[in-house]
């Protein structure tokens, strides 16, 4: 079925809140009503029609032709269906999404996949800081689903991760997996300082690790059945992650400054 397309006319003059443009909110609306939806974040009123040319189609699949780093909150609370952004987007794409698929071909700002609970978020370029993290005051970050970042991620990726899997095929900034509650975080290229800072449980797999933090304790080299299993489950999403998990892994338990039931896995 033909997707419902929003074709960007020109770079917007203010940051936009695109949270209303998700399948479950557009479902059943006529194109002319959708064109009247307000997106502004300042006192200057801006509607969908001002920003985009609309090509009507099925609202189960939404396509943004052209993106902008001023596009905030794309796919917010997505409950199903698919959103594809051909370009960049701003902060919090896929925040609190529960199901469905969000694909951003370019790069995005901070808080991508923040507190998402299900579905699949793929970012073709780079992600900002606090990937999958909770917003201020929230107790947990991502609680389910999969995030794939083909490029790099900023600081504190997977902060307070509770459940689900994050794969960063590029490099990660400082403190990846900070305060992790559980879940799985994979970094393929370089990784900044202090991975797993204050993590309680969960798994951080680093293909190219920095110095292991002093509060992580060596537990030997192992061929884990679970790693084999994850290699197979991850291979459709990321070959690099699958390759990492199919090798013998050195296990470091920590963060002993917190609960200490987490682990950092490195190629042995």
């Amino acid at each position, binding site marked *: 079925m033909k997707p419902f397309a929003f074709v960007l006319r020109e770079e917007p003059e203010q940051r936009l809140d695109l949270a209303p443009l998700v399948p479950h909110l557009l479902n059943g609306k006529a194109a002319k009503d959708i064109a009247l939806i307000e997106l502004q974040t300042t006192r200057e009123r801006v509607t969908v029609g001002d920003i985009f040319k609309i090509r009507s189609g099925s609202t189960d699949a939404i396509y943004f032709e052209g993106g902008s780093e001023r596009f905030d909150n794309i796919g917010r609370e997505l409950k199903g269906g698919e959103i594809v952004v051909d370009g960049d987007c701003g902060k919090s794409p896929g925040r609190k999404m529960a199901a469905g698929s969000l694909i951003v071909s370019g790069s995005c700002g901070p808080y991508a996949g923040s507190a998402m609970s299900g579905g699949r978020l793929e970012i073709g370029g780079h992600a900002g800081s606090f990937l999958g993290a909770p917003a201020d005051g929230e107790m947990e970050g991502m609680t*389910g689903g*999969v995030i794939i970042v083909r490029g790099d991620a900023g600081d504190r990726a997977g902060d307070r991760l509770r*459940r*689900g*899997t994050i794969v960063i095929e590029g490099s990660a900034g400082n403190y990846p997996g900070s305060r992790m509650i*559980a879940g*799985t975080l994979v970094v393929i290229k370089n990784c900044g300082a202090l991975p797993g800072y204050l993590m309680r*449980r969960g*798994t951080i797999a680093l293909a190219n690790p920095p110095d292991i933090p002093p509060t992580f304790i060596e537990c030997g080299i*192992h*061929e*884990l*059945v*679970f790693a*084999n*299993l*994850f*290699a*197979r*489950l991850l291979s459709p999403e990321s070959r690099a992650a699958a390759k990492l998990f199919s090798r013998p892994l050195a296990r470091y338990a920590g963060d002993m400054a917190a609960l200490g*039931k987490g682990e950092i896995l490195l190629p042995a």
Partner: protein
Amino acid sequence: MRPIKKNGVRIDDSFAEAFPMRGTAILITAPTRRWSRQAATTMTGFATSVIGCGCEAGIDCERPSNSTPDGRPGVRVLIFAMSSDGLQAQLINRAGQCVLTSPGSACFADLDGADRLPIGNDLRYFGDGWQVSKKFGDRHFWRIPVMDGEFLCEATTGLTKKAVGGGNLLIMGANQETTMRAAEQAVAAMNEVEDVILPFPGGIVRSGSKVGSKYKTMMASTNDAYCPTLRGAVATSLDADIGCVLEIVIDGLTEESVGEAMRAGLAAIIKLGPEHGAVRVGAGNYGGKLGPFHYHLKDLLP
């Protein structure tokens, strides 16, 4: 009742009477084929009949390493019981005592369905707080630290309420040697059918029973009508040329799979012929009043 003859083998105009059961399937993997078989064999030991063993269990098939979730050789095990609670208890006891304990093993769900039976969700407590939960998509696994590394176990497996137990063939031949040959060839053919197990030793039972006994305490006793040594002394079901009877019992996850297995077994027996195999094939029933599933032999002929 005039028997149908196929390749010289007489086929009774009779039917196997089968019963609804609860069934489940798991996949056991291990570093080698030998050890996946070992775990599965141990887990399905002493599981020939629900009456004395609490469940009926067996190996359905082997899976090569390229088609298992963790890339190691696997064996699919089916377990059947009369109630969901009974099945749950047997599954946990057997997985806990026989699979968790088996070197290098891992345990996966191998039956889809909305009804679930916990496996890892119960066995995880063995981890004493060190167990690790891992979710990916809609699958949930437990990693339990053990002395050779980790025991990986899926949280739940599927339960079917549409399983069928008690499909059977009565294989009758001139003597033990020819009857056994026919029974073994039937077992080999039936083992190729998916979603079924033959719970008795090597798939074959030699002590078929009837309901009731002259002794008050016995619920079931020897099926004297099919005992060749009693041929002249009781109301026998055996002909003059029959000196040995062996039975194959089949449990399946679906009504169709049990029928398919019986069809495959019949075909193998008929192909072997009466000279070297069975002279007659029958099926056990209780007059059709007890079990809802009736497999008529004449409908299953090749």
